[in-house]
């Protein structure tokens, strides 16, 4: 028997990409092994367990609330006919463009004791003081869970809706023939079949929730993310901060591992072509009203109300807040987001294709380690990125000083937009990889074989066969990364060079001083710039389905 350990050039590229993407994390983990007993022990004995509990509750809560919103919505839109369905189908994705900390701010204002809702209630019932009635406090862990879920549920909605549309109606018809109700069929047929997609969507949502900083900080909910921040910038212990980050990474890998384990027996490479015509259920009467109402409620809370309030701020505070610099910030945000989306998609294509070509049991490792950055909060990521980049800068400058061929470039890597690009790519690569992986999975391996049998190289197969078949998936991957980049905040705050401001950092300066009204224009711009890509994502998905 002849054992071969040779790696193709595709695998070499994939491993190189995966290792490079995980380099900042490797530095962080290395840092976490440095001794820092005192600070970490102190945190361990005092607050670390509370932080961990809050983090886990936050993740579970966001996943649960997102499921309660996204699964019924996905099912309604995929299988039912009801008034307004055509519009809801795409509109329900809009909250994705809304940064969580902005709706957190808006709803705090709305539901505060002095906010319009409580003022109205008091005038209605004649209450005078806060002691006379109970009203929920939005600045709490449950409040944070709802805010984050309201803007993250579209990930699950999008993935679940697509999965349902790819399931053949015949299965539901069979269930109906056996006398089962729609609800029974939903739980016994649709949900189990879409389980992989649901778990994938929930994994994305959980990682986003774990990484959230601005919302939980604003709501004074202490999580591991805020603990890392405190430890680094309060106790001045990078090592203890790195240790906490390592705990977060552990939670992440356990979550992802559980997801992989639960899908270990699924071997669905290709799907039969599905010919679904029309809706399965046509809702009438109460059911129709209820469905439309539910869609409107979610859309209203996650998008319409915040946008209307932002718009009214923008008009009301026009004179104090209008600056011509908006266009510069918008241009800088757009450039950054475009470069990052392009990089993420390109790397994703190489890594996933190499994974497809390989039959090694380790083939998925480059993609996995490359995706780990997604769970890291931007603040931690900023440290993690600076660690190797400043090292690199030192080498380059040292080399320049000693060689005399060229003058020392200064902080070319860590002090320019380069550091931001690296941080964003490390953070958002996971989104691109997931989407591209799903896209590749739909293409039958027999096409690869046919192509190879006609003498095409692997590169030609990718270019001529795969790319045309999956260009919508690629577009979706790029656009989702783009939207996340527009919203990203903590890494940008710490890594941006002189004269570089993104819309998000501009908005946050005012939000952190509780003056969102003065930055309402920029906040609206973030949302508007995110909307266009969302429209493309949705229409590309629609076309993908109609082509199948």
């Amino acid at each position, binding site marked *: 028997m002849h054992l071969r350990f040779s790696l193709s050039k595709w695998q070499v590229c994939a491993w190189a990409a995966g290792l490079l993407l995980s380099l900042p994390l490797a530095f962080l983990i290395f840092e976490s092994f440095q001794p820092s007993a005192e600070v970490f022990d102190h945190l361990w004995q005092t607050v670390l367990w509370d932080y961990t509990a809050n983090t886990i509750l936050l993740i579970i809560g966001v996943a649960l609330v997102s499921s309660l919103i996204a699964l019924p919505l996905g099912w309604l839109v995929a299988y039912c006919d009801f008034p307004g369905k055509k519009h809801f189908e795409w509109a329900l994705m809009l909250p994705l463009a809304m940064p969580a900390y902005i709706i957190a701010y808006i709803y705090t204002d709305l539901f505060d004791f002095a906010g319009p809702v409580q003022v109205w209630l008091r005038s209605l019932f004649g209450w005078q003081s806060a002691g006379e009635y109970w009203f929920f406090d939005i600045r709490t862990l449950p409040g944070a869970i709802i805010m984050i879920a309201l803007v993250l549920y579209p990930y699950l909605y999008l993935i679940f809706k697509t999965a349902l549309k790819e399931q053949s109606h015949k299965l539901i018809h069979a269930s109906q023939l056996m006398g089962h109700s729609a609800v029974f069929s939903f739980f016994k047929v649709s949900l189990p079949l879409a389980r992989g997609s649901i778990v994938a969507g929930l994994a994305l949502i959980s990682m986003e929730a774990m990484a959230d900083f601005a919302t939980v900080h604003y709501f004074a909910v*202490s999580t591991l993310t805020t603990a890392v921040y405190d430890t680094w910038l309060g106790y001045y212990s990078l090592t203890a901060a790195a240790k906490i980050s390592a705990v977060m990474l552990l939670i992440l890998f356990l979550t992802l591992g559980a997801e992989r384990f639960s899908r270990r027996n699924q071997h669905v490479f290709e799907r039969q072509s599905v010919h679904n015509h029309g809706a399965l259920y046509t809702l009438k009467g109460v059911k129709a009203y209820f469905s439309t109402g539910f869609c409107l409620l979610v859309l209203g809370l996650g998008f319409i109300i915040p946008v209307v309030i932002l718009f009214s701020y923008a008009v009301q505070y026009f004179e104090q807040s209008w600056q011509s610099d908006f266009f510069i910030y918008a241009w800088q945000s757009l450039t950054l987001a475009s470069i990052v989306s392009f990089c993420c998609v390109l790397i994703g294509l190489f890594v996933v294709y190499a994974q497809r070509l390989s039959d090694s049991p380790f083939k998925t490792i480059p993609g996995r380690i490359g995706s780990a950055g997604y769970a890291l909060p931007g*603040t931690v990521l900023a440290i993690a990125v600076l660690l190797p980049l400043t090292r690199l800068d030192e080498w380059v400058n040292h080399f320049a000083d000693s060689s005399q061929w060229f003058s020392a470039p200064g*902080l070319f890597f860590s002090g320019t937009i380069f550091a931001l690009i690296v941080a964003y790519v490390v953070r958002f690569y996971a989104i691109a990889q997931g989407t591209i992986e799903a896209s590749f999975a739909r293409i039958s391996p027999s096409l690869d074989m046919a192509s190879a049998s006609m003498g095409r190289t692997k590169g030609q197969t990718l270019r001529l066969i795969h790319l045309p078949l999956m260009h919508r998936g690629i577009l979706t991957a790029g656009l989702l990364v783009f939207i996340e980049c527009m919203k990203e905040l903590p890494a940008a705050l710490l890594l941006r*060079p*002189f004269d570089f401001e993104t819309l998000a950092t501009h908005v946050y300066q005012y939000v952190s*001083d*509780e003056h969102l009204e003065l930055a309402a224009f920029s906040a609206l711009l973030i949302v508007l710039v995110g909307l266009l890509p969302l429209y493309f994502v949705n229409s590309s998905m629609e076309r993908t389905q109609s082509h199948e």
Partner: protein
Amino acid sequence: MKLKAMALLASLFSVSSLAADVVNIYSFRQPFLIEPILEEFTAQTGIQTKVVFAKSGLIERIKREGKHTPADVVLSSDFNTLLQLQESDLMQPIESELVKANVPSTFRADDGLWVALTKRARNVYSSKTRIGAMPTLRYEDLADIQFKGKLCTRSGKHPYNLGLVASMIAHHGEAETKKWLEGVKANLARKPQGNDRAQVKAIKEGLCDLALGNSYYFGKMIMDPEQKPWADAVHINFPNQQDRGAHINVSGVVMSKFTKNKANALKLIEFMTDNKAQNMYASLNMEYPVKAGVPLSELVASWGEFKEDSLPLTEVSKYRPVALKLMDEVKFDL
């Protein structure tokens, strides 16, 4: 078109401005506090300023950047940050007779490594209708059981609160301060949250009767038509007037050891300690100028003179790490 795009991209990657007529600033202070003063500086000297604003993380960034840092000066919003910068070994003494003449020696380091620019007092706001003015209030009283459920504050880990707790440790020791902190926590009307303005708003709304806050926010709120009703609902009290005086903190400035624009950086620091900027700090930001003889804003003056805690800030700041540890031990924010 292609060239233009290339030029724009190149500008994104340019390392930093090393031009002779520039000062690069890392600022912990917020843009709207600093920008008017920087604009005035540019108008007077022709020297451009470039700023990175961030509320935290800048020291860590300077440490990583080391000798390649583009920062010429760092503006800090509290005293502890000034000390951290001083200890980073990345700063150089500010050698200027003008600065020495402008700033009293208690408000600059002996070795010149930091210079304070403004003072602010940590006040207690009280509800006009439910409590009234409290001229004899002491910080120690905030732990008194009579205020159970009546106190509001921002996060215990905010530098302003850590400074106050450090001063309590300096005066009373760690054990007594911990007991005091537990009492303060037990008196809270709600979990620590929001900023200093939000606490005053909470008094107006009736959620609490007392709140900790910095003095200049009071002036800022009075000047904002929307927030004036909040400020109108409270008295501003200077604590411990019968004994050691109110706790004060300072904002300040340091100069990077590796500045490539030293002359300009020095000009900026001199400008910030001199009459024009000190006046602006007083009138626009409602802060207490460090330069003697610079008048307070009319509004700030109307709050009356008060006694400041005379314990040196360096002495207070020693206890900041212990203050942070105590915050975690009593789970103040949880």
